[in-house]
């Protein structure tokens, strides 16, 4: 099985790993919309990362993609009242704007991101 986590860590242009040390800077203070994946490193991990990468590359610079460090998943879940994994969370302007539960297909994630971004544009 591919070591997706290892591959991601070597590529600085790909999904960013986020923990308490950099959560504030990389997510809350980020000016771009942030798509954050909260998931355990289990048998479904690679699949969901690939989905996230597909969508991230479609939006390129307009969207920041982040993955929670494994050991911060439980803490983050408590903070944001997330009950299960995987959960995709969209942040804009430092605030949560929506979440998707469970394993999803790239198209579903893409549509979710578009919906959130469109809603943001309308509010502006």
């Amino acid at each position: 099985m591919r070591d997706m986590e290892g591959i991601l860590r070597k590529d600085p242009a790909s999904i960013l790993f986020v923990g308490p040390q950099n959560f504030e800077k990389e997510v809350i203070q980020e000016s771009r919309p942030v798509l954050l994946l909260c998931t355990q490193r289990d048998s479904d991990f690679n699949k969901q990362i690939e989905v996230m990468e597909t969508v991230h590359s479609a939006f390129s610079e307009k969207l920041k993609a982040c993955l929670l460090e494994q050991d911060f998943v439980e803490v983050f879940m408590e903070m944001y009242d997330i009950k299960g994994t995987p959960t995709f969370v969209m942040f804009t302007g430092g605030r949560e704007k929506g979440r998707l539960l469970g394993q999803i297909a790239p198209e579903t994630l893409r549509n979710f991101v578009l919906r959130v971004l469109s809603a943001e544009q309308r509010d502006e």
Partner: protein
Amino acid sequence: MQGDSIIKNEKTSGYMLGDKTENIKKRTDFIEASGELQEGALEEIEEGYVEVDLKGNTVACNSSFCKITGYPKEELLGLNYREYMTEAMAKRVFAAYNKVFRTGVPNKAFHYEIIRKDGETRIIENSISLLKDHEGHRIGFRSVVRDITERIRTEEELEKHRRSLQAIFRSVKDAIITVNDRMVVIEANEATNSICGIPPENITGRIFTECSFRCDKICHEVLKNSLEKKVDINEYKIKCRHRDRPEQKVVVTSSPLLAEDGNWMGTVLLIRDITRLSNLERELSERHQFRNIIGKSKKMQDIYALLEDLANLDTTVLITGETGTGKSLVAKALHYGGTRAFKPVVTVNCSALPESLLESELFGHVRGAFTGAIKDSQGRFYAANGGTIILDEIGDISPTIQLKLLRVLQEREFERLGESLPIKIDVRVIATTNRDLKEKMRRGEFREDFYYRLKVMEVRLPPLRERREDIPLLVNHFCGVFNRKFKKNIEGVSEEVLSAFMNYDWPGNVRELEHSIEHAFILCHGPVIGIDHIPLEIKEYSFSKKSSQRRKTIQGAEEILTVLEKTDWNKAKTARLLGIDRSTLYRKIRKYGISRPPQEM
């Protein structure tokens, strides 16, 4: 018309001309026309129409009836119904017709089987009514017939399918709960009892969210989410926090129930218990890393387990270990692994500051508290409020500060220098030291009460030489770190270097290993770090160890050769004199390449 008179027709309430012949003709024409119309209409309908006499012989029928029976009209007319069914069936049909005859009440939708002319059995639905003449005498029966074979077969298939689905539904080990668009439970299977702890009959017909489940009801939220947003939710892993099974983990999938027009009419919730699988996965996956702490050795696995237990508690922790074993990393891991992760973490190196400055640094001071105190300072404990304070090298602090820290640990309050007002704080204390505190305690350099207050939980980090199997992992990790730092592409270390690393004693532990690799990265300009790139002391240590091993080898071969010559190459005697068995002797002879020189003739 001349000679005509108008006569009221009593039967029809119409009028006809008085000329009887003309009237009869017209009436006959009318009846004939009506009859033709009626016959035409009967030929158009899809249902079969048949009239039989009291003996059951066909008197009239339409084309559809011919199609149903497979007989042409000319064969059907005069044919008895018994000719196109089995004897048993004929008895049933006779009974049905007889009842209609006796009661006069039509029999609607009577089903029986016929045998077509081509031998095929078909199921028909027959609506039977009495035929009477104009005087009201029963002269026969009229039937409207439909071939319902396909419908019956489809119904039977559907019923079979339904029973099969029911069997699967009952027996499957996953809980399956079906709700409509108002969240009312339509159906739930037996597994709902084993997984959710509630019998299906207790929830069927009730609103799902109002049922008394003994868990955190996360499934309810999943279901609501799915119904409100009209989305599928697939393989969502949750911890149920079931009162009877607190460790239970499940995977929840929510799928739509769609009507024919595609409208969402409900949801099927599938809940699978993955507790055992999840635990097995966890057991099987050997942990190579806990935050930035690297290691897969048994000692490190034990430490990871302990750190997980301690992370979410506020317990004071003492981390001990030689210099460079990663005490600060572990302290940070404890902070970031718990609920204080997003709160401040403050580190104080207690050995770096003299006592007077350390006290001020830790607890703060007010302006004028001492020479040089030109303004107020809150201190590190205050800065760490809500979070964690890491006291590095706690073994180096003076008894005075030990006492003040003891008060903080016990009372959760302190005073700033130059002030008597106590300040309450909520801080988790993690202390680290490479000193032997027990020894210091014995020498009176460390307070006993403070020691035991600190040592509520101790995490002892092993030196690197006690977990050599982690060296390759650490080498790999640091190569990755320095490749990124120096923007190089070094693949790793040579076998010789790895061997040197594995043999070295590492008095500086992981920090020394890290610096060695950084040193090698600066010198290495190729893809692989070689022996000449690593620090001299490691190279020399490795060389001297090899020499010592080689010397032992040489001694072994010389000794064996001497004894062999003494015994005139008698292997049994040689083995006895050397104190080894013969197979060992033969092995050593092969290993050292010892051979008897050729004898002179």
